[in-house]
């Protein structure tokens, strides 16, 4: 079985939201992941 997640997220810097407004994945292909662990921020 497989789960596919599709979502909108901020993609460039914004004066209102500081330098952290970019969405970044914190995982990569081949990683093992468990429920509740961060996919991205």
């Amino acid at each position, binding site marked *: 079985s*497989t*789960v*596919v997640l599709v*979502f909108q997220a901020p993609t460039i810097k*914004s004066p209102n939201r500081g330098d952290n407004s970019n969405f970044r994945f914190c995982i990569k292909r081949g990683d093992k992941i468990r429920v509740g662990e961060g*996919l991205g921020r």
Partner: protein
Amino acid sequence: NNSQGNTFLLPGATLATLLMLGALHARRMYDDRKVEEAREKGIEIEFKPDAKASFLRLLPLRSISRIWGFMTSVEYPVWMRPYVYKAWARAFHSNLEEAALPLGEYASLREFFVRTLKQGSRPIDHDPHCLVSPVDGIVLRVGELKGVGAKIEQVKGFSYSVSSLLGSSSFLPMIEEGDMHEQSGEQESTPTEKTKKSWWSISLASPRVRDTATTRPVKGLYYCVIYLKPGDYHRIHSPVDWNVLVRRHFSGRLFPLNERATRTIRNLYFENERVVLEGMWQEGYLAMAAVGATNIGSIELVIEPELRTNQPRKKLLHSEPPEERVYEPQGVGMMLKKGDEVGAFNMG
């Protein structure tokens, strides 16, 4: 052993199950080794249809899946349960210490397969800016969707369309006109034209969208594909706080979803039976597709327990529109908190 003389019925079924588990394990080890060797050599596996994949199309995989579900629903005697489940765990690398109940309390393999976990086994990252994994598994693909007809790569050399996977969005009224503007440099549509377009035609033709206020960030459309191995925890949780607005059920085929299938069967993900949940989170659109496979054919939703998947059908037409349900109250839907249980994959 009963009065009708069915003395060896259960041991026979158990033996068949154990033999099947052994065969699956051997096959898995062989495939894993091949893939590992290829990875070590830096080879990316390319899409290559083969005769075996064509043959799979001829098999009644949905019936096979339901028979598998029936077989795994057979109740084991209490003394036998720990042995069967330990064998399963050894074959598929499950962590039995996480199981919420003692092994003797799972009456069948099917029940054991969708076991819940002890409290605290899966701590949730509650950072409000963090999107968490909805399942245990292996990350197959991650990235940002770009360009017209956004696609996700199934395997090198073959990609599938996201809109085909998720279906047409039906909650356009939820997207305020002011929230959806195409990126600068492209001509903007008039409000009337915008309302005629579906959400997908706006977002996938130009996935980066932004608000009229320049202080708001440009939004991208991202994706993540996670594969659950047979030994993994098979319940699905909410990745963020969000409002689920629509559920779609696509009654499709039930091809296997293993590594071999991804590189030999075209359109694997959107030909298979799946349930799609679609809604909004703090950053905009969010959709989650749970795709079934031969051995794990049915998908159960906690938020809609009456939903039945992997049902027998006389005829299966892939052109059929999905069965869709808009959750009440319309425009608000069902609110889910990060980490909430959303559903589960069942055997067969």
